[in-house]
């Protein structure tokens, strides 16, 4: 397999030009050759806007066929893609734009509040009228950097994870090897395709020649379950929170409509054993995979729970080509808790524009996650070394929310922690010291203040008013005490 993921797509186009690649939510099918043509037209649009290979281009779209065509187009033209969640606020996009020195930001439509971000281009609604970029201008050899994906750093300042074509290509071949995905597979995805979990599946399918049914999000569950059966879907990836919603509300429909699924893949956050058992019970003939990884080291471990019903707490063993240890490079721990370290061809070389040496230990990427490796080599994820909060796979750090809360005129001090949540794994809880009457109205006012500056999932579910935020002598918030208070 070629190392360039756009080249893999071209190889599939020449093998299966008339095979459907994408199916839009309204049922419109797009064959491989059609998506290729649209991607080349978008590459022409880039070229005619002065973009050159290796330029960095931001795409911020909801799930759609246009988005995938734009993404493929920029890769075919040799650009680096920066994929930003469509729910992101203007401040975040502006930061990303400046940090990666982007040349262009492409959106599906003009958006109020985003006017200050320079270099914007609306995806042309008349794309069909544009010419395709000539074949001799397709450039899949020169620029090794495919993506820069921004994640929350421990300080709350986003860092751009650099992912090369070689990184992504290894992940593709690894998943194909252990999950056995082939050109007959048909996947229905509700995952955000600006995040690596959902996007990597698109890469796999375009490499193998499968078909992907794109849905904007997990909305009408009964309708989606019907579609899984009527369209003979074989793969349905999702987050633990998404599966919990389905299993709690529609277990019978899930059992009936999903019985022919070849496999289910879950990622992004830990899943409660009760729900894993429920999936195994309802769909005994479907392979149920979980994988663990980070944007920096995607799909580093995997497990098929059907084969290991005694390891439901584990996220499995290293994927082919990955090495995973717990502890440090010089002191590997077995049956003891320590930091998870990862090495392999899928691991990022570092973060855009910054010295990344502190994130590596003798070539091992330090994940910041805590885990335990048992004597059989199975890893169990135990939490985060630092303070990141994981809302069903969407991550944030307390500092992001605290910075916003502190800008409210009534807030004197504050702290934010993650609290356990049955549906999403964790939720955000704020603690605030205020110089006004601490009542419900003020709590709602503070949450609305956060809503204006932060993505929806980062808004505190509750704000608890306190007299004082517990801190160490050096001024660090004692989050453990705040979490204990929530448990009382």
């Amino acid at each position, binding site marked *: 397999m070629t190392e360039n993921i756009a080249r893999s797509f071209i190889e599939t186009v020449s093998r299966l030009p008339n095979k459907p690649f994408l199916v839009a939510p309204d049922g419109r099918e797009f064959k491989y050759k059609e998506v290729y043509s649209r991607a080349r037209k978008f590459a022409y649009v880039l070229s005619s806007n002065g973009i050159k290979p290796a330029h960095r281009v931001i795409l911020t779209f909801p799930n759609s066929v246009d988005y995938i065509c734009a993404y493929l187009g920029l890769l075919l033209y040799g650009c680096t893609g920066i994929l930003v969640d469509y729910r992101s606020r203007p401040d975040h996009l502006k930061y990303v734009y400046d940090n990666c020195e982007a040349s262009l930001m492409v959106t599906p439509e003009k958006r109020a509040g985003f006017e200050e971000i320079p270099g914007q281009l609306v995806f042309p609604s008349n794309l069909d009228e544009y010419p395709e970029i000539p074949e001799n201008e397709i450039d899949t050899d020169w620029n090794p950097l495919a993506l820069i994906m921004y994640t929350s750093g421990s300080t709350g300042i986003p860092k751009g994870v650099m992912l090369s074509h070689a990184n992504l290509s290894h992940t593709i071949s690894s998943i194909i090897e252990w999950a056995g995905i082939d050109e007959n597979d048909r996947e229905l995805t509700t995952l955000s395709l600006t995040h690596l979990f959902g996007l990597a599946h698109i890469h796999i399918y375009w490499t193998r020649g499968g078909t992907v049914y794109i849905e904007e999000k997990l909305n009408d569950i009964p309708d989606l379950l019907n579609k899984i059966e009527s369209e003979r879907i074989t793969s349905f990836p999702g987050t633990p929170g998404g599966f919990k*919603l389905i299993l709690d509300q529609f277990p019978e429909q899930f059992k009936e409509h999903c019985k022919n699924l070849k496999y289910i893949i879950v990622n992004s956050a830990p899943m409660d054993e009760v729900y894993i058992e429920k999936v195994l019970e309802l769909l005994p003939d479907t392979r149920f995979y979980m994988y663990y990884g980070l944007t920096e080291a995607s799909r580093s471990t995997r497990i098929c729970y059907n084969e290991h019903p005694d390891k439901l707490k584990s996220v499995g063993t290293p994927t082919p080509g990955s090495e995973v240890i717990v502890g440090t490079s010089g002191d590997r721990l077995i049956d003891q808790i320590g930091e998870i370290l990862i090495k392999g061809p899928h691991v990022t070389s570092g973060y855009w524009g910054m010295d990344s040496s502190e994130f590596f230990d003798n070539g091992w990427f330090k994940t910041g996650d805590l885990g335990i490796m048992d004597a059989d080599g199975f890893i169990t994820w135990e939490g985060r070394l630092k303070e990141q909060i994981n809302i069903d796979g969407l991550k944030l750090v307390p500092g992001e929310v605290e910075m916003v809360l502190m800008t409210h005129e009534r807030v004197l001090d504050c702290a934010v922690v993650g609290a356990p949540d049955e*549906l999403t794994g964790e939720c955000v809880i704020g603690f605030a010291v205020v110089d006004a009457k601490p009542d419900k109205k003020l709590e*709602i006012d503070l949450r609305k203040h956060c809503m204006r500056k932060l993505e929806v999932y980062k808004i505190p579910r509750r704000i608890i008013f306190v007299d004082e935020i517990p801190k160490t002598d050096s001024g660090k918030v004692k989050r453990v005490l705040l979490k204990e208070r929530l448990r009382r």
Partner: protein
Amino acid sequence: MSANDDKLKALLEEILLIDDDQYHDDYGPDEIETWDSLATINIANAVEKEFGYSMSPEEIVSLETIGDIKTILISRGVEI
């Protein structure tokens, strides 16, 4: 505005962080950014706590607007 309507409005303000001018019967997830699938579940739970009526899964997924919530409550004898 009835007392129950006030209760529903307060409940939705707390969950969805809506302002007064967003409390319209025909407003739903398209108009209210904070109304996602998790918010729908939270609304159903809060309605049960406040009005004592437990929505069925079918009713929960059919909630597309504020008016839909009112329709369900009215059908259960709640005066709004």
